[in-house]
């Protein structure tokens, strides 16, 4: 009963914040609303007894991605100028596409007989996840670390200003 009430509160927080993120005219407000959306999802993970995933969500999304996004928002001036809707798609077709997608998904949710585990197990999930990473998911785990390393090096290369030798060569070619 009380879990149901908590679920509704978290769902309203998550959906409301997400709507602000997607539809707000003010980008700083959007970015801060992203915090509400991520925190709502953290709460739902805790409600689902997924302790490891909840903490990782808190560290990676709130502590990492959100702060990075905030930096990007603050570092780009004149960012509030772009508030108009997308020219390529148009407002009405975009809303129709989203509504149809939502309708199909919710229809599928109601049509599917969802299986529910009978008993509620409240136990740390880290043991099982750790075994999964060292057992069946060992190769994907290593690949993920290589992808992350490559992405970090790529991000450094992309966001660094051009060094003098390269820019001289570029201006000589022009």
């Amino acid at each position, binding site marked *: 009963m009380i879990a*149901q009430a908590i*679920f509704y509160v978290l769902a309203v927080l998550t*959906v409301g914040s*997400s*709507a602000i*993120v*997607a*539809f707000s005219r003010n*980008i700083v407000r959007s970015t801060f609303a*992203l915090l509400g*959306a*991520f925190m709502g999802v953290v709460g*739902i993970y805790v409600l*689902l*007894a*997924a302790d490891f*995933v909840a903490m*990782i*969500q808190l560290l990676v*999304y709130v502590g990492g*991605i959100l702060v*990075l*996004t905030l*930096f*990007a*928002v603050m570092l780009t001036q004149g*960012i509030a100028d*772009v*508030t108009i809707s*997308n*020219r390529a798609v148009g*407002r009405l077709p*975009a809303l129709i*596409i*989203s509504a149809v*997608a*939502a309708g199909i998904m*919710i229809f599928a*949710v*109601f049509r*599917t007989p*969802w*299986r*529910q*585990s009978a008993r509620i197990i409240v136990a740390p*999930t880290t043991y*099982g*996840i750790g075994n999964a*990473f060292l057992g069946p*998911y060992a190769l*994907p785990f290593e690949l*993920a670390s290589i*992808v992350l390393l*490559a*992405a970090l090096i*790529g*991000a*450094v290369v*992309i*966001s660094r200003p051009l060094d003098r030798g390269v820019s001289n060569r570029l201006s000589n070619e022009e």
Partner: protein
Amino acid sequence: MAPPSYYMILSAVLFCIGVSGVLLRRNVLIIFMSIELMLNAVNLAFVSLSRAWGSVDGQSIVFFVMTVAAAEAAVGLGIILATFRNRATVNADEINLMRW
């Protein structure tokens, strides 16, 4: 304990908000945030089904999704900042460097 269908509907709603954000907005940073919302929606579906099935496989996959999201954030924001430095715009319609 709410049944799994509640969580799936929440996930579907969250995903569609992300889709409409990507389709409606022209600011690349908002599009980026909407993509993060969609990734979150998928993670939510994975965790709720992992709970319903009493297995940790879904939660392991969420970890990989988060890895990809972190890589995407680092590279994506780097590209956005580099584009902004060169073109002084965050309007997705004006970013056509790859077009000829």
